[in-house]
Every structure is written in C-alpha cells, then in structure tokens.
C-alpha cells in the first residue's frame, strides 16, 4: 500500500524486536469473539488515478455548466490561485494546533494577523480564530452574551439566516435559553416597535444579521442604543463578509459573529467555511475559541503563543466557555492570505463591483412587467424580488435554460412564496444578468 512505509521484512524485524510471534498478538487484549475474522466490505483499494476518476464522475453529476444566482450565506467570489498554493504548503496543511509555540510560529503569526484583519474589518477590538461556521459562531455569540449578562432570554430577528436560527434553537433547548423571534417591516428591517415591546430586563441579547437574509442592511447604531438602554447586548451576524469593503462595520455592536466563506473559500457544497467571533476587549475572557497573543521569548524577541487558554475545554473541562477544540484554522489562513492579496483597494473595488452589479440586476429584473423589489431598505449584493407567480415555478423554467435561479423564499417564509432572493457578485457577468432577466421574462410569459 503506497501510504505505508514498511516492507514485509521490516514488519517481521519489528515484531521480533517486540518479542511478538505475530501481529495478532498485539491485539490480544481485544476479546477473541469481537475480533473481525473477515475483511471489511469496503470499495477499493484504488490507485490514485481511479480515485480521481471516481470523483470526476461524481463532479459531472453536479451543476457544472449552470449559471447560479444563489447566495443566502454562501457566495461565489474571485479567488487568486495564490491562496491555494500557500495553504497547500505542507508546513501549513499538515501542522497541528500550535501548542508547541517554538515550532509553530508560522501558524501563530498568521493567526495573529487573521485576528487583526477581522478587527479592522468589523470595527471590533478582539477576534478569535476560529469557529466552525457562521451558524455556530452566532450560537456561541449568544451563549457568550448569556454569560456576560447572566440573562436567559434572547431576541432574534426573523431576518437572521433560517439555518442559523435552527442551529441556535438546537443549542438553546438544553441550556435554559428562551429564543423569541422578531418580525421585519415593509422596508425589510427589524421592526423597532416590536423590539421595544419585547425588551425587558431578562433579555441577554438581540441578534440581527446585516446585510440580513433578505439582503437589507440593518441600522446598527440605532439598534445598539435601544438594546443597551435595556442592559442587553447586540449581536450582529454577517454572512456576506465582502460587504465590509464598502459598508460601515457594526463597530457599536457588542459581539459580531461572522461567516468568512466569502474570503477565499469555495462554496464546497456548504463547508468547510470559517466562522469568527469579534467583540470588545472587556468581554475577552468570556469568548470561546482560540486566541493567539503577542509575547517575547527568553531573549526578548517577539513571538506568538496561544493564550487565555483557561477559557478552553482542555484546561477548564466542564467549566469551559465552549467545547470547541478543532476549529477551522486552515480556512482562517486562507482568509488571511486572500485578504492580504486583495488589500485595501482590492477589497473596496470588489465590494463596489458587487454593489454595481446588484443595482444593474435589480434594474434589469424590475423592467419585467409584474416584477417588483419587495423591500425598500438599502442592500449590498442580494435583494428580494416579488414575482407574479410562484418563484419555484419560475426557477423550474430557468433550469431548462441552464440557470440556477434566485432562492425561492417560500420554504422559510410562507408569506413570501412569490418572492426570491437574488444574489450577484463580481463573478456574475452582465451577460449572465441579461440572460437571467430574459429567462424570467420568458418564464412568466409561459406561465401566464
């Protein structure tokens, strides 16, 4: 077997050195009746070429050749080939969590740079590296708010990603948290009167997403003021991190829970992505997850170590701030390389291109009779449109034209069955957008 570096003779030599007559002797502590007598029924062994062939066949059964207008928490953005070249260096790829700081300074300094980039982007003071994804980061942010405030009710905007709300409910069920959802208004933003009515002195946090699931930007400074007046914290979730290149960051929020997929990670059918929690310095000891800190060695040279580990499970066990251990470190490295490549101007330009393309797409789509924008609020690269027919039926037609249409919203918002969430990024060409508009027009003509 090509991955195993031993010859039969070496195996025998080693067995002899141990003093074992056969390899089976080494498994003698497993009761005889539980030892497998037959080979496992597994496909293989396959050569490298056969493995590649198998996956190429599976790839051909997917969406290759289709143009997609899906976003909703997973975005297609340009990625430089440099990012993959760097993260595939064995020294990064095949290194463990950097507990032994003297021989993992590369990973540790990169984490420190990641934390810095996340702080600069979000306007927060401290960021961890990392959480499993945006949904678990948001959930952990709520649990953190519970620890900070000692309160157990949490208000969640209904415009938070539906899957994020699902994950939060799974975790909340057994930790004594009560989750209450708040509606959105005609402009697509959280209804402030409902927020005011729901705020009492037992509320740990309000969770909003911005841009929210419907594409609309929330008013973070106003929400912060309202939430703080009741002694609660504001948690802002961000699924489309590229927005931060042109949208004012939620600096006033107490905790930011972000999905970093947009920074150099492919959609990869939903993962692995990179979650991150950013917050204020004063809350750092309640944060979950890994943190790298700057320090000096015995000779006064700058170096980095994992720090504040007394929050973590391997030290605190049942009293830890979270059970997270393995996180998404390589994804965080990919984001660090990607953002360093983009730089200040590249990120700004990318964000501005998204904005321009989304405005163009909105204009093209709303030229079609019966197609309107659903919500008035400002948006970044996603917006909701209302169609004269079910969005699912329209999408069914678009598939025939090799277009994966905008996400129908009916499944998660029953009142919005005729609505769809359109996403365009810098990777969507003008021609793609014009094809979509023409396709929708034809679909509606057919359907009527």
């Amino acid at each position, binding site marked *: 077997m090509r991955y*195993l570096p031993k010859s039969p003779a070496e195996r025998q030599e*080693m067995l002899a050195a141990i003093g074992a007559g056969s390899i089976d002797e*080494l498994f003698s*502590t*497993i009761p005889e009746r539980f030892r497998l007598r037959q080979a*496992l029924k597994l496909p*293989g*062994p396959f050569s*490298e070429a*056969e493995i590649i062939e198998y996956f190429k066949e*599976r790839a051909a059964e*997917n969406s290759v050749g*289709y143009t997609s207008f899906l976003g909703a928490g997973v975005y297609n953005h340009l990625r430089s080939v*440099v990012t993959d070249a*760097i993260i595939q260096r*064995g*020294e990064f790829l*095949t290194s*463990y969590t*950097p507990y*032994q*700081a*003297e*021989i*993992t*300074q*590369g990973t540790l300094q990169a984490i420190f740079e990641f934390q810095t980039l996340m702080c600069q982007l979000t306007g927060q003071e401290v960021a961890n590296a990392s959480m*499993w994804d945006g*949904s678990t980061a948001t959930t952990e942010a709520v649990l953190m708010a519970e620890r900070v405030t000692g309160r157990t009710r949490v208000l969640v905007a209904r415009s938070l*990603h539906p899957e994020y709300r699902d994950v939060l409910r*799974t975790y909340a*069920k057994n930790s004594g948290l009560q989750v209450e959802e708040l509606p959105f208004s005609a402009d697509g933003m959280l209804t402030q009167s409902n927020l005011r009515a729901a705020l009492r002195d037992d509320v740990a946090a309000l969770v909003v997403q911005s841009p929210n699931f419907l594409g609309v930007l929330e008013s973070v400074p106003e929400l912060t003021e309202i939430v703080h007046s009741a002694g609660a914290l504001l948690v802002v979730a961000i699924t489309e991190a590229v927005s931060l290149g*042109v949208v*004012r960051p939620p600096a006033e929020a107490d905790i930011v829970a972000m999905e970093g997929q947009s920074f150099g990670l*492919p959609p990869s*059918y939903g*993962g692995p992505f990179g979650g991150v929690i950013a917050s204020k310095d004063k809350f*750092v000891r309640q944060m979950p997850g890994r943190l790298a*800190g*700057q320090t000096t060695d015995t000779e006064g*040279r700058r170096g*980095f*170590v994992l720090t504040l580990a007394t929050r973590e499970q391997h*030290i605190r*066990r049942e009293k*830890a701030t979270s*059970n997270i*251990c*393995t996180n*998404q*470190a390589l994804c965080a*490295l990919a984001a660090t390389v990607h953002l*360093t*490549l983009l*730089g200040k101007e590249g990120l700004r330009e990318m964000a501005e*291109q998204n*904005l321009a393309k989304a*405005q163009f797409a909105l204009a093209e789509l709303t030229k079609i009779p019966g197609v309107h924008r659903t919500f008035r609020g400002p948006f970044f690269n996603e917006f909701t449109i209302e169609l004269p027919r079910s969005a699912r039926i329209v999408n069914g037609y678009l598939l025939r034209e090799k277009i*994966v249409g905008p996400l129908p919203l009916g499944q998660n918002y029953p009142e919005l069955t005729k609505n769809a969430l359109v996403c365009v990024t*810098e990777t969507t060409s003008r021609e793609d957008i014009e094809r979509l508009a023409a396709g929708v027009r034809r679909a509606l003509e057919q359907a009527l």
Partner: protein
Amino acid sequence: MSKRIKKATRHTNQNEGLIFEKSSPGKRAFELPPLDVPSVDPAKMLGANHRRDGVEHFPEVSEIEVIRHFTRLSTWNYAIDLGMYPLGSCTMKYNPRVNEFVARLDGIATEHPLQPLELSQGCLKILRLLENCLLEITGMDSITLQPAAGAQGELTGLLLIRAYLEKQGNARKKVLIPDSAHGTNPATAVIAGYEVQNIKSESHGQIDVGKLSELVTEDVAALMITNPSTLGIFEERIPEIAEILHAKGALLYMDGANMNALAGIARPGDLGVDVMHLNLHKTFSTPHGGGGPGAGPVAMKNILAPFRPVPILVEKQGGQLTLESVRPDSIGRVKSFSGNFGVLVRALAYILAYGPGIRQATEDAVLNANYIRKHLEGVYDLPYSLPSMHEVVFSDAFQKKNGVNTMDIAKRLIDYGFHPYTTAFPLIVPGALMIEPTESESKEECDLFIDAMRAIAEEAAENPELVKTAPHSTRVRRLDEVGAARKPILRWDASRQPAGEDHQHRHKHARQTEPTPVTPTA
C-alpha cells in the same frame, strides 16, 4: 550541535515582520476584471450612514511580498510532511495529496449547498458512499455526517441520547466521564444540559467496573468512554460495561478519537456501543491544517436514528438521493448546510485508497507504538503496564529526580528534529509523555525517534540544564506565556506603533528582533 542529534541540522531561515509592517499605500497584489455594468456611487446606493470609505490600516502589498511573507512564515512550522509528529491522541498521519486534489475539482468545490437536488446528485452520492463505509467500519446502524468536528460530534451524540430518553419520559440528569477523558467530553456534557460525574480509573488505568455498577442509577443518561482509552489501552470489559448501563436504561457513548487502533480489527457496534463520533481529521487522514477544519460524524444504533440532526440523506425510489429537513423527532440542525463537505470528500478518498486494506494501517500503527514502547521501557517510567495499542504513555518519574519534566523533554525533542509528543495528558498520569507514532512512520523514523529519546534521557541525567533550557535551535526560545495572558496583545494596533516610523526604522526594528545564534552547551 550535539553529536547525538542525527535527524536535524541547523539551517538559516528568513526573518519576517507582520504583514501590516510591510504595507505601503498604493501597492497591490490583486486586480479585478473591469466592471462591465455602469458604476454606482456607494454613498448614494447605501446612504451616507452605511457607507464605508475603505478599511483603515488594511495591508497594501504586492503579490511577491504576499508569497514571500507566507512562505517565510511556513518555514517556521513543523509538519507531518517534515517528519514524525508523535502527538498522542491526535493521530498525526500522512495526509494524501490526491485528497486535496479531488476536493478542489470543478463540480466538487464549486457546488452551492442550496442548489437544486437534481443538480447535486454527485455530492449526495459521495455522502452516501462515505456513510456506508463508516457504518461498515464502526459496525453501527445509522449515521450523520453533519458535525463539524469531534466536539460537535460529542454534542450531537449526547443530544441524541437526551432526545431518546426524553421520548421515553425522562431525560435524566448525569453523564459519567472517566478521569482519563478528553476535556471536550465534560465541556460537551454541560452544553447538552447534563451534570458531569467524573469517575476514577482503577489501578491498571481501566474503568472500575465494580464501582461503575454502583454509580449507574436511574439518574444516569450515559457513560462517555474512550476506547482504547487515552492510555492507549483497550477497555477489555467494555461489553460488560455496556450491559451495566443498558440494564439501567442508560446508554454507552464512545469517543472515537482513538479509532485508529480498531479500524478493520474490531467494531464498536459489536462491542455494545450505542453511539460514537469519529474524528475524520485523525483516523481518516484529513489534514489538521494548524487546528482544523475537521469533521465529526456520529454513528449510532437504530434506537437513536429517528433523532438524527437534519438534513437527513434519504434514497428515494429510483435511486435519486435527497436531503430531508423536516423530521418530527430530530434534535434539529447542528450546523448550517451539509457538514464540512470538503473534509468528507477527503476522508472518502482516503478510505477508497485502502479499501479493506485499512486493517494493515491499523496493524502498522499498533506495531509502531509497541516497537517504541519496547525500546523506551526502562529508559522512561511506564506507569501502566497493560498492553499498548496505537499509543503508549510514559511518565517523567525517572527524569524528575534531576529536575527535568515532561515539558523539558518535549522541548529538547524539538532540537532533535521531532515534534513533541503530547505532554501532561492524560491527567491521571502525572508528568505524562503520550506517544502516538501512527502507521505513517517507517522503521527508520521510529529508530531515530527512539535514539533521540534515549539521548535526551542521558542528557537529563548528565546535564539537566541543557534539557531544561531547550529548545536551543529554534527561531525563538521558550516564550513568556504568563505575560501573554496577563496583558493580552491580541491584534496589531496601528496606534500603538512608534509615531512617524518610516521604512528605515522598520528595518532597524526588524534587525533587533532577529534571533541571535545560540550554542548549546553540549
């Protein structure tokens, strides 16, 4: 350098500051294709109060600088690709490159999780085949691939147990956890809403079955067991342990972190285990990447299957695969979308490479651990003498007499060209040296490791100071961890840098932070 050091040689590596210190306005490493639609005024589109004018202090560097920056940083890391990484309980094995290649294919990496199922059959077939392979390896009935890592697998497993017990009318209060368990076990039990009751190992390091039967009451939901234990020892009485729990209506959870000792040899499902997680980033070779991403699938017996997290992969008539999200008894969703799909792809590629031959990998892993044990026994103290499986745990008791502890030995091992073993874990062994070589090490590499460990034992006796001040050959020496925690510096702050610092100053600063050569005393 000591003549005893055979594997490593000192060699120059490059200094490198933080990327923010190299930044200069106007440099760039990335260009976008020109905009093919009319440009817009962000302030007008977003409103003045939402508009941001660039991210302050964001790096501005060129492409070659990015490449050099991260390449230089990479050379400061130790890695599996450089040599043996004997971290006990972490299973640092070779990460095959073909796995990286297939995970990046067009049609695999490019797929959106919300795209229509009829355009996702390739992804779903990959998931289904991996499910079937893992069920065959574990001997369980049903599985979820959703959890993002081992700890989330543990949580999912306990939530399944809770849902099952609740359905029977009583979720119960406690989870029993041996004192040798990973820290994630107790941390997870608390999130699942359970009290943790720690149980002491008996004198051979195994679970005290007599005491266990006293502890298992109607209040106990489950026992979380690691098998082989973190001492690398198989829990021989596990079928009996399962019976004790089952007799009281409690379930047996197995932490599969050490599955590398069992794959192809024995199946937890046959041993009476009700539910377990696997760490695909351990047993199934997906790269650690400096701390993730991983994946923590949870395999279970039929009684727990109705409670699996959504979405659930289902085969419809005609063979079409679909993901179902509405299941009344489900514990809910534990992660967005379909797990860490890219990690699952890599794990399947690994299994396909071995097929049933995965047994050979397990045998080699156990062979390596026992070979190392044989050669270091007597040189280092072996507190538990039961047969080892995939890892062996020594203690620093002999070296302690000269004031040298496990951390010192670990740091000295760095000078010998190896990554340290796991130090000070499991907690039941004071001064533990936990060594897991995995199947990926050749006899030659094992011999070099044994040599190094023997040489360090001699140094600890002859010249303890040399060991206590190690490592001597690294870029940085031991770092001030206490200081780092007392006054945390967790980001680079432009405002904290010396005012008016120009390039020349920066260079001077860089030179001051250069490592000065250190000559070990032996």
